């Protein structure tokens, strides 16, 4: 059996006084690609943020490679080998595109080289010296994904990475995810864009009201389409 990379048990999360995660349970094995599905506001982003300790407060258990992270500072959790691409992209305006790219510190072996990254996203090379937030919406999205590929993180948390990208690029991203899977990366994706996510994931989790309400594998997908339709309007 593959190693457990991430184990989430009974995770509750709050933003200030509002309780948004109500006991999330799931796990991700090393080398797996898992997609979180759900309607707007179901709590998918919050789940990713909670894994890194980025939301107001959290309770329950989140183990990364067997280590309990509740109560750990965010930067120490990240150092366990997690790369995060946030929903709102988080490009820094005081840094150039290239500085943005180079910003995240090295977390481990085997990250992509700059040349590989530029080969994948030629736009970024061209705009390398531009101020980060001057890039177009889509370029910023590319940058946000690209910069965590450099760090050697083995678990990638990708929030809506196909958002706002031209179909060509979406297609490229799909290829990229597949390639990463090939290389043994562990990936947790949040996707609105079901068609994009469908062929990529090993497993799907459906969230509703801050809980995981369904789980199934790629193989089970065809048989689940109907019930998915009900939840997601797919």
């Amino acid at each position, binding site marked *: 059996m593959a190693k457990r990379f991430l184990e989430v048990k009974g995770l509750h999360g709050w933003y200030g006084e509002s309780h948004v995660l109500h006991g999330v349970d799931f796990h991700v094995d090393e080398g797996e690609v898992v997609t979180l599905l759900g309607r707007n506001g179901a709590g998918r982003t919050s789940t990713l943020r909670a894994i890194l300790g980025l939301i107001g407060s959290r309770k329950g258990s989140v183990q990364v490679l067997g280590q309990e992270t509740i109560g750990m500072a965010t930067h120490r959790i990240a150092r366990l080998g997690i790369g995060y691409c946030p929903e709102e992209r988080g490009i820094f305006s005081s840094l150039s595109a290239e500085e943005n790219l180079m910003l995240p510190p090295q977390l481990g072996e085997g990250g992509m080289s700059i040349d590989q990254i530029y080969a994948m996203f030629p736009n970024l090379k061209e705009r390398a010296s531009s101020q980060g937030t001057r890039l177009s919406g889509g370029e910023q999205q590319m940058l946000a994904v690209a910069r965590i590929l450099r760090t050697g993180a083995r678990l990638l948390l990708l929030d809506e990475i196909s958002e706002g990208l031209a*179909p*060509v690029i*979406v297609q490229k991203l799909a290829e990229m995810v597949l390639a990463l899977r090939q290389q043994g990366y562990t990936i947790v994706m949040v996707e609105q864009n079901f068609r994009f996510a469908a062929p990529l994931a090993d497993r799907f989790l459906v969230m509703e009201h801050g809980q995981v309400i369904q789980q199934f594998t790629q193989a089970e997908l065809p048989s689940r389409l109907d019930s998915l339709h009900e939840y997601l*309007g797919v």
Partner: protein
Amino acid sequence: MSNPYILETRALTKEFKGFVAVSKVDLQVRRGSIHALIGPNGAGKTTCFNLLTKFLTPTSGQILFDGQDITNETSAHIARRGVIRSFQISSVFPHLTVLENVRVALQRTLNNSFQFWRSEKVLDQLNGQAMDLLREVDLEKYAALTAVELSYGRKRALEIATTLAMNPTLMLLDEPTQGMGLEDVDRIRQLIKKVAANRTVLMVEHNMSVVASIADTITVLQRGATLAEGSYEQVSKNPAVIEAYMGSANVELKGAH
């Protein structure tokens, strides 16, 4: 009217420190149509919008609205002419009620916005009109809530209602369905179609299914310049567009969003 185009640009160009983001674009938006602006990321779509509404100043070129040169007018002026934009990220007045959100937009027509000595009760005459607009976007139930309390899709709807309140001749929508679940996408798509009945819409959109179903004309930008223009059928068959934007697996990804 003699001029079939509500909006025209002539060789519109924007340079950022030597980088040409928009290059000699001649855009012609036909009165009463839904016009989509698409193109790869970084093609200059948002920049174009910013130029049209004067959030950025063009490096060169001209902008004509209804045949009149508006290149040198300020943002507020242009808005008052009836060119209203929505933002890529949702933009409402969070702590005003839904009704007040719309009313603030209607208020301009009363020309009393500098009257600090009158009671705000004079604004109540606008409530009926505001409710009508909310009804149009299915928000009348929420009229008394503050805008923060709305879900994402409803915020976008509110934004459109507010925009409609300005009685815009030309609406500029920047990726109106971005970040929405499928349900909401459909709601917004229908809404756009509905409100476009008697006005012009210019929109940026990556969601091809939306574009395909409602756009009358499509302009494809690439590297700041026009690559192709025409109906969805024409444009989507254009090899250059497929190459630059749709991608090879066009057919498969068409409905990807």
